[in-house]
């Protein structure tokens, strides 16, 4: 049994952390806060040169021949740095969906651009604030000869302002599947609660749509969910690190607040939540990557736990910091807002718990 990452995978994590600390410190992240469409083309270009977007794709599609598990720690580092790039959406979500669902020809058409970083894809799933992915989706493509056309709106599309293609969940007959749309989409960027994360509404007007070969949302949605959980672990780890560091420095009553059990126990609880969340996220990534029997169940377990516990962790981090975390200047609010956004993206805790209940026969 070996349920941990390899030395090479940890090596890449360390390299990513060094790169992001240098190239994308929080001062740099903050340069993009005021622009609802804001993301860093420069950082994206550098990452692409390092081969990060190519990492997990087979060589025949312009990739470096590694697998989904090689993305897990990297996603964590991007979440840790709140890096202003659409890596999660384009590479880990859309790229993996196309790899899992696309025909040979479809993969060859779409993946090289995603792998090189020249093209950016965003996943268009939700149409309402609550409860997507569970039942039939409202968006219904219509036949156009051998192909399809899509009209209508997708909301809450992460990284839509950065994207030039979309992987769209839609329903034909009464079954959901993924479509790729390259033109005929209009993006309306929104002001977001997490200002490091661009989100848009995507309006399709009779847009030509290519249905991916394997007609189901799964396992694609499982890859997307596991990838999001992987990112969440990095965000939460940084939140805990900042909180512990601050509590060792900040003095009140003549001693560091980190020597008070009120703060120590809070941090210990956060560390425990995080380790459990990490175990769940890594297990889901492993299960999805290897097509394990409990892949679907494990993503619901991971996302339900990560959603609620890591949002709770972020709130506790703010509380332990006290007034300083209430200021715009301090970074804690950015981590809190990231956590609250991650909490509901791809379904909140209650949504995933209901799916657990159904799978386990309740």
């Amino acid at each position, binding site marked *: 049994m070996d349920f941990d990452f390899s030395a090479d995978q940890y090596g890449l994590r360390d390299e990513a952390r060094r790169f992001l600390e240098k190239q994308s410190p929080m001062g740099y992240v903050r340069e993009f806060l005021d622009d609802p469409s804001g993301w860093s083309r420069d950082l994206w270009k550098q990452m692409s040169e390092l081969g990060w977007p190519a990492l997990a794709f087979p060589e025949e599609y312009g990739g470096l021949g590694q697998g989904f598990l090689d993305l897990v720690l990297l996603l964590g580092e991007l979440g840790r740095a709140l890096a202003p790039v659409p890596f999660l959406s384009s590479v880990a979500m859309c790229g993996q969906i196309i790899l899992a669902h696309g025909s040979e020809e479809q993969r060859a058409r779409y993946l090289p651009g995603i792998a090189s970083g020249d093209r950016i894809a965003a996943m268009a799933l939700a149409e309402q604030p609550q409860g997507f992915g569970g039942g039939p989706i409202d968006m219904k493509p219509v036949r156009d000869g051998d192909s399809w056309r899509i009209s209508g709106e997708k909301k809450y599309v992460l990284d839509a302002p950065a994207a030039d293609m979309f992987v769209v969940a839609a329903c034909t007959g009464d079954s959901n599947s993924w479509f790729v749309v390259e033109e005929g989409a209009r993006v309306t960027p929104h002001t977001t609660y997490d200002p490091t994360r661009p989100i848009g509404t995507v309006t399709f007007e009779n847009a030509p749509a290519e249905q991916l070969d394997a007609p189901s949302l799964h396992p694609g949605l499982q890859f997307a969910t596991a990838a999001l959980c992987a990112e969440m672990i990095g965000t939460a780890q940084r939140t805990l690190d900042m909180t512990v560091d601050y509590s060792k420095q900040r003095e009140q009553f003549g001693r560091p607040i980190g020597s008070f059990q009120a703060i120590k126990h809070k941090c210990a609880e956060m560390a425990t939540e995080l380790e459990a969340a990490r175990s769940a996220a890594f297990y889901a990534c492993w299960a999805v990557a290897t097509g394990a029997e409990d892949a679907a169940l494990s993503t619901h377990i991971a996302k*339900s736990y990560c959603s609620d516990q890591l949002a709770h962790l972020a709130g506790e981090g703010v509380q332990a910091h006290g007034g300083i975390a209430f200021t715009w200047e301090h970074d804690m609010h950015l981590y809190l807002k990231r956590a609250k956004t991650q909490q509901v993206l791809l379904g909140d805790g209650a949504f995933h718990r209901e799916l657990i209940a159904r799978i386990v026969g*309740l």
Partner: protein
Amino acid sequence: MDLAFSPEETKFRGEIRAWIRDNLPAGWGTPAFKEPKTFDERLVFSRAWEKQLADAGWAGISWPKEYGGRGATLMEQIIFHEEMAAARAPQIFINFVGINLAGPTMMAHGSEEQKKRYLPKILDMSEVWCQGFSEPNAGSDLANVQTKAVLDGDHFIVNGQKIWTSFAHVADWCLLLCRTDSTVAKHKGLSYLLVDMHSEGIEPRPLKQITGDAEFDEVFFTDVRVPRAQLLGEINMGWTYANTTLANERGPAFLAHQIRFRNSLQDMFATAKRTIRDGVPVSEHPAFRERLAKAYAEVEIMRYIGYRMVTSILRNGRPGTEGSVAKLYWSEMVRRFQETSIAIAGLGGVLDEEDGIDDGKWNRGFSMSFAQTIAAGSSEIQKNIISERVLGMPRGEVWSPKPKEKV
């Protein structure tokens, strides 16, 4: 990353599974089988069952071969515990302290004579052990042990009181943590003695616990004479020995616990499906579905944590951060789990034993769940340990009384 078992490991699994199938008491695990409930019933039952395990060579599965054990690899231990748990086989009870605490401590720190004298009798179940650690004033502050052992020629004279001592009134031997030097810092003056529980001056008094059973005792030591040769390892090294306990034992045991919880989870689901509320099963009420699904997720996550712990032990010889948080995670989980079960029982949980729902099982489980967050290092102590040793946070100041004003 690879979670597969090797062919040898799978073969081993078949072996233990077959043995369990052939040896579990007939009818065990079926509703018709009356499981032993009181301490005395469990005692009789477990003496027979654990003797059966011992005779088949399964008792000291983790013990090295040189001490008569099976010398099983970590993975084999995990498989053994998994299969025992999956079959809902009785958990080790009467021989728990001997096999898991006294034996391994002796292997690590005892003399050759001591190992030769005591270990075989633990393995063949001819002697039962208890562990004298906690005292009325040494609970979370274990280093504050006050039971004194004073040298008098060839003997230590032991005086003091222990509490929460499991099996003391049926034990033959006690692994006793006692103070041998009162002049040094409290954790530097402690030693381990191997004490004959049949000695004059020892009086165990059973303590009736929250469930009405008496699984442990208070033990009073009055001028008990213990031969000097019964000192374990070096004098005043007791605290160090107590702290070098068996972190590696936790991986396999943790995964076995997980399977036991999975069994309980299935039982809880079954109860939720047949308990009607407002005309429909409890399991269909959104508020309960939410709690049931959460319980399922939390129990599964325990398995993932266990895999990480085992991997750390295999790779580095010791558990990592996940090992430090594991106890806090699962003991708090058990509390929530039992809260949920007793909520499902509803008014059925107001009555107990045969009159209650599921034979009072959820009531007992609820009461017992407090043991998880109190015993073996309370949740509060676990949080101190995690914050200081894992997160590197400063130790708190020691409270001291205000100086008295001069009259």
